[in-house]
């Protein structure tokens, strides 16, 4: 598809972001060469803990998305030829393919020192890393986040969450032992405190960034946000990330004041659910070319806390929701455990629906697009239920776009773009109708009062 150039000028902080990303890539390459321990883990693992050690942390999701961006389809084909079915998570197939061929954008994919998976958010994150650990025959650790239904109103609700948090705390303590044993290093308390505080600060900054994005009209595009997302997945525990986010937030605030908009003709505002197809981000640009701006995303909101705590169950106790800067390892472990358990809200159907509706209202959305990411059970969890709820409760139209996060073979551009065009027309029509209805109602109200 041929699209025009971006409407708004590039953000000044891109240079800063590139610097930080390049430094990160270089650090990884240098560390691998220097023989530092390599931890292959999911991005949902306790990043604060792993980054407190002096290791190379290769987050599977980050790795898989970049492979998808490079359209490295040979990797998925290799994984499939080794007996991993096509229907599995595309990030997993990319990483496994990389592991099997020992190639990839990092150069040689190193044999990990240890592998850490998580269970609970999406059981695939445990199976995928288990398969990696078995393949290379290296130690493997699973942290179970337990998908607890945080029904604080039920009589055993709070008790159940308390037990879960304690269980996760014990597991994180086991994980500390595991990491110390596999890396040969001792956990440095100051590092752990620093990473924990940094991560929390970055989560808050991320929330601010998302809120600015949801401004009407929107000052940045969703593609910009996905570029920033790379930061929060791979560098969430660093102060570098904080500095970039702070710079971005300031610059975007200025844009709002000056009236700079991202999409030339922001006729409709949409919600975007799930990852994009990293291999063809221009699909998002196509929406913009039709006057549709994406202004909120429940998937991106996972990395913050606002739509984890603020939207969560009525009756959430303070000990679960409040943050206190940790001063020792035990307090760090507790904060990390609470964070992990709280993230489980998203994969719960009622909570997911609640978050979607709240986001749609907060961002003044006119409709939503659910990217049916084939093979990704965690992120598409309850997607169709969310769509139905938005349609029934808020009267907003929804659209399901079939695709995959990083396997370009699962996406058909031609039919998809045609369907998108039709959907956007529908949203515009419905918005017009709503406006006419509201205007009539307002007129009636003012006539009554006369």
């Amino acid at each position, binding site marked *: 598809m041929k699209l025009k150039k971006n409407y708004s000028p590039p953000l000044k902080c891109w240079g800063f972001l590139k610097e930080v990303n390049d430094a990160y890539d270089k650090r990884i390459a240098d560390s691998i060469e220097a023989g530092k321990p390599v931890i292959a883990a999911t991005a949902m693992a306790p990043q604060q803990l792993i980054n407190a050690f002096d290791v190379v942390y290769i987050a599977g999701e980050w790795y898989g998305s970049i492979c998808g961006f490079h359209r490295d389809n040979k990797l998925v084909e290799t994984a499939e030829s*080794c*007996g*991993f*079915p096509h*229907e*599995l*998570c595309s990030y*997993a197939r990319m990483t496994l393919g990389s592991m099997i061929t020992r190639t990839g954008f990092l150069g040689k994919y190193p044999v990990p020192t240890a592998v850490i*998976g998580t*269970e*609970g958010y*999406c*059981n*695939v994150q*445990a*199976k*995928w890393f*288990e*398969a990696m650990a*078995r*393949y290379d*025959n290296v*130690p*493997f*650790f*699973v942290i*179970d986040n*337990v*998908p*607890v*239904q945080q029904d604080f109103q039920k009589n*055993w609700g709070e*008790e*159940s969450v308390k*037990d*879960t948090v*304690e*269980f996760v705390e*014990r*597991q994180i303590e*086991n994980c500390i032992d*595991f990491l110390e044993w*596999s890396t040969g290093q001792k956990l440095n308390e100051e590092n752990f405190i620093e990473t924990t505080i940094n991560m929390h600060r970055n989560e808050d900054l991320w929330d601010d960034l998302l809120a600015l994005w949801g401004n009407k009209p929107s000052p940045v595009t969703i593609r910009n946000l996905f570029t920033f997302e790379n930061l929060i997945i791979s560098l969430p525990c660093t102060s570098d990330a904080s500095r970039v986010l702070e710079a971005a937030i300031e610059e975007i605030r200025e844009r709002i004041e000056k009236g700079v908009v991202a999409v030339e003709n922001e006729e409709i505002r949409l919600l975007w659910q799930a990852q994009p197809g990293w291999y063809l981000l221009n699909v998002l640009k196509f929406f913009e070319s039709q006057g549709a701006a994406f202004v909120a995303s429940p998937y991106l909101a996972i990395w913050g806390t606002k739509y984890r705590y603020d939207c969560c169950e009525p009756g959430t106790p303070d000990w679960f929701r409040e943050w206190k800067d940790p001063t020792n390892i035990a307090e760090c472990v507790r904060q990390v455990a609470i964070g992990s358990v709280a993230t489980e809200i998203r*994969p*719960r*159907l*009622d909570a997911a629906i609640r978050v979607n509706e709240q986001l749609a209202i907060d961002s003044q959305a006119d409709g939503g697009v659910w990217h*049916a990411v*084939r*093979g990704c*059970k*965690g992120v*598409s*969890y*309850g*997607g*169709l*239920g969310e769509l*139905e709820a938005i349609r029934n409760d808020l009267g907003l139209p929804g659209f*399901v776009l079939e695709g995959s996060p990083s396997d370009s073979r699962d996406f058909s551009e031609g039919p998809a773009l045609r369907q998108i065009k039709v959907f956007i027309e529908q949203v515009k029509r419905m918005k017009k109708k709503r406006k006419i209805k509201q205007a009539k109602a307002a007129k009636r109200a003012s006539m009554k009062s006369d």
Partner: protein
Amino acid sequence: MFSRFEEIIANRHEHARQLGREKNKKIFGYLCSYVPEEIIYAAGGIPIRILTTEESPALSETLMQSYYCTFSRCLLHQGLNGDLDYMDGLVTAYSCATMRLAFDNMQRSVKFPYSRFLYMPGIIDTPDAKEFYYKELQRFLRDMEDFFGRSITDDDLREAIGVYDENRSLIKRIFEGRKASPPNISGREAYLLTLSSMLTDKADHNKMLRELIDELEGRKPLPEGASRVMLVGSPVDNLKLLDLIEKDIGAWVVGDDTCTGTRYVYGNVAPSDDLEDDPLRAIVERYMIRRAPCPAKHSQTRWVQCLPCPFRDVACFDLVPQPRNSLDDSISFHSPERICRFRNALQLGINHHVEGVIAVQQKFCDSHGFDFHHVTQAFQHVGIPSLFLEIDNVISVGQIKTRIQAFIEMLHPVDYMIEPEIREGIQV
């Protein structure tokens, strides 16, 4: 001989409905074999597993995307279709995200008088995990007491455990005969026993099993089959698959590692030190440690215990390819506290003299899909080849038959070809 088991499966909802009426008991539907049925039974309910039918899961399409397995969508479809109206409760234990979505949707859209999602941890062998699940089941027990309006004593639990253990033992006893050549019962008949057990009152089922054991004594031996195979993988509940393998192609299914088959009856609660003081803890022990695990469950402690093992978690013995006939029947493996999934499958395969493994995967099943590569490798190490077979709720006969037949032909070149008379003679 097996027709009464067949009837239960063929008319499962009607059967369960009548059961509840006749015995004046509440029927609880459950989705996953990890649900501690003994607790529901002790409370006075009858747990009935919800399995697939060949009906297309059309009603689930608006709630679950097409890349969630058909198995789970069929369960949701039955709920939305009103097929489960007679059920008083719906329970499941955490095993995979797909089943969880099916359950969540059922909970939202179908009004069961009681519904509960049990937070079974994905880690099944640390003391913390067991303690966590124990507390969770204590809460469940309190819920059951509230719902049934009675207290559930340790004796009630012990009684339920007794009934369930007996059921498992009786089925295991019958399954022992599958080691023989030819096996005492066909694979289809074996599944009839396990599936019907999930769909009825265990006490009644025990009676039927005891009668069957007597009847089997005088049974004419089955004809020699073309081969001996084993099913490993996702839940199999469509008997047409077994008909295809056994009747059409003529190979006996002499064992399996599926949760609708042998895994359902593997591991009893008793004997247990906890049975006297705290039967609930014994139940936790059985469901977490003693039963053969699903690939959706993991060990957290493996990294220490299994470090010396060169093929960690794939098989717990020194792996040098060995010719099959050098391994004897009662091979004993180094046993960590937890039953290892591969060890369990390999042990069964070797003890039942399996010649080929059919790795069944429900299309879109992640847990089994990720394991397939290593299942094949594990069996290859003991000289047993595998066939990967993708299945759905409906068996597409042509494609599956070609693959299985080609697999059997590969195991037994010309020998397979010359036994048409024997295949015709199989009347099961």
